[in-house]
């Protein structure tokens, strides 16, 4: 028989549940809260040990670009550098070196490794919409909204599905605001010149 050691989510007491079934239901002995646990085979798998890379034994053998004393096992599919098993990172079936991974994360090209993003579309929308309450400030915020929307049109966005309509709305709105200011400026100048 196997007993699963787990923490009660309600009172945080460590409890032991008998795994008679992949889904077990019980009550916490401390707080009597109902607990349901669904267990999966990964629970019984050992974590695979990391590889430290094989040392070079003979001269003339290809060595790792980052560790000259380690034997190269694969070339990086991003930059072509030779990598030992310590430096080789397998991602989506491709072998990459840490530098390519770092560059990919910075440029937002590795969606799987993206840990955070700035939502520029929301910032552009905010700058285009909220200042409308105090219209005079749009003279500054409308160009800023337009700049952010155009500058970050192709910046890495959210990984979840999200359209570009906020960028489009921000561009249209900020353009209209700027046109309005332009017309107002022309009228003011016209009045001043032709008075």
């Amino acid at each position: 028989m196997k007993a699963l050691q787990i923490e009660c989510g309600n009172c945080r007491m460590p409890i032991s549940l008998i795994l008679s079934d992949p889904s077990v239901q019980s009550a916490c002995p401390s707080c009597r809260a109902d607990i349901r646990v669904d267990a999966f085979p990964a629970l019984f798998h050992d974590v695979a040990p990391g590889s430290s890379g094989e040392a070079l034994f003979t001269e003339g053998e290809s060595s790792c670009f980052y560790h000259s004393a380690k034997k190269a096992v694969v070339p990086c599919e991003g930059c072509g550098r030779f990598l030992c098993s310590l430096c080789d990172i397998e991602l989506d079936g491709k072998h990459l070196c840490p530098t390519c991974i770092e560059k990919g994360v910075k440029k937002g090209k590795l969606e799987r490794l993206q840990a955070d993003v700035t939502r520029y579309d929301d910032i552009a929308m905010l700058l285009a919409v909220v200042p409308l309450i105090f219209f005079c400030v749009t003279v500054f915020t409308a160009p800023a909204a337009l700049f952010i929307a155009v500058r970050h049109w192709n910046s890495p966005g959210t990984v979840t599905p999200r359209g570009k309509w906020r960028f489009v709305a921000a561009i249209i709105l900020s353009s209209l605001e700027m046109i309005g200011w332009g017309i107002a400026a022309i009228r003011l100048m016209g009045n001043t010149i032709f008075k």
Partner: protein
Amino acid sequence: MTSKKTSTYRRLPGRARKRFGLLEFYWNRLWLADDHILQVHMTAYSESYKRFYLKDIQAIAISRTTSGRTANVILACVAAGFGLAGLMAAVWWKSTPAGVLLGVWAGILLLALLLNSLFGPTCVCRLHTAVHVEHLTSLGRLRTARKVVGMLKPLIEAAQGKLTPEDLGAGSEDWVDVQASVHALPDQFVSSEPKQEWRHEHGRLHLALFVSLFILGLSALSDVYYQNALKNMADMACFVASMVLAVIALRKQNRSDLPLALRRITWAVLAVLIGGYLFGSIYGAVYVMSHPELVSQSIPQEIRLRGSVFESYCIVIGVLHSALAISGIALLNKFRTKYAASQTSSS
């Protein structure tokens, strides 16, 4: 290098929001991809992600919590307080605007209570991998959590396979402890024997609390017939002492061997003390406002409250306090006797 947008995400039910009024500070959501679950933590203008691959998930645990029920009790008590105060303001104080205002507040709270009840019981859902224990805050309602786990289970089993009776050690006489998230939890969990930190609590503080509560109950009953400034001050001192004792007793009973019924009575004592205080304060304020001549009293303790509502309040509070105190003392006595007997037999 890999191309952009390789995964297609499907939104999973549930959302956790942290807000203060109309301002939202953050919200969490879960999304499902072909091979992983994505937890999105959104703040005002940024998002951060955590990915849990289906092949790595060891277990998903859902623990039912009492926070929803507690919120309902608090909302109901405060709504009742506002409702009664509104009624009293309209009937005795003859102030319709105050009555309407208090009534509207009571209505808003009742609406919140209704919504909280409709959303169902609350829970804590935790996802275990070999190196994580992640609290999935977006699955804060039991119904949603069960629905999502029901959706995920076949996908995880498709990625990992099903647990067989051999995996679970069926038919084996040996007892094997399995630890979820063995690389993530503190040391106390890693030992094969889980340490149950049950502490013996003698219950002297609980006894002092119940005695103090009993005195308060008797005093509340006697308020129907007799009130004076000195008695009111003594009542206030006794109330403060009871509150302090209740808070310390609640702290002490945590992870102690006191019986569950006794621990629940201590929580009920705190709730009754707070509820009684809130009602008494609101009623007192409305009573004084409807009797302006009482405002001239030099100290609040000299004010004598009268009326059928006040008398009913005294009787209800007196009976509640006494009943809780007597039940608590009886349970404590039983627990002590049982503990003494077990000590004698073990020695």
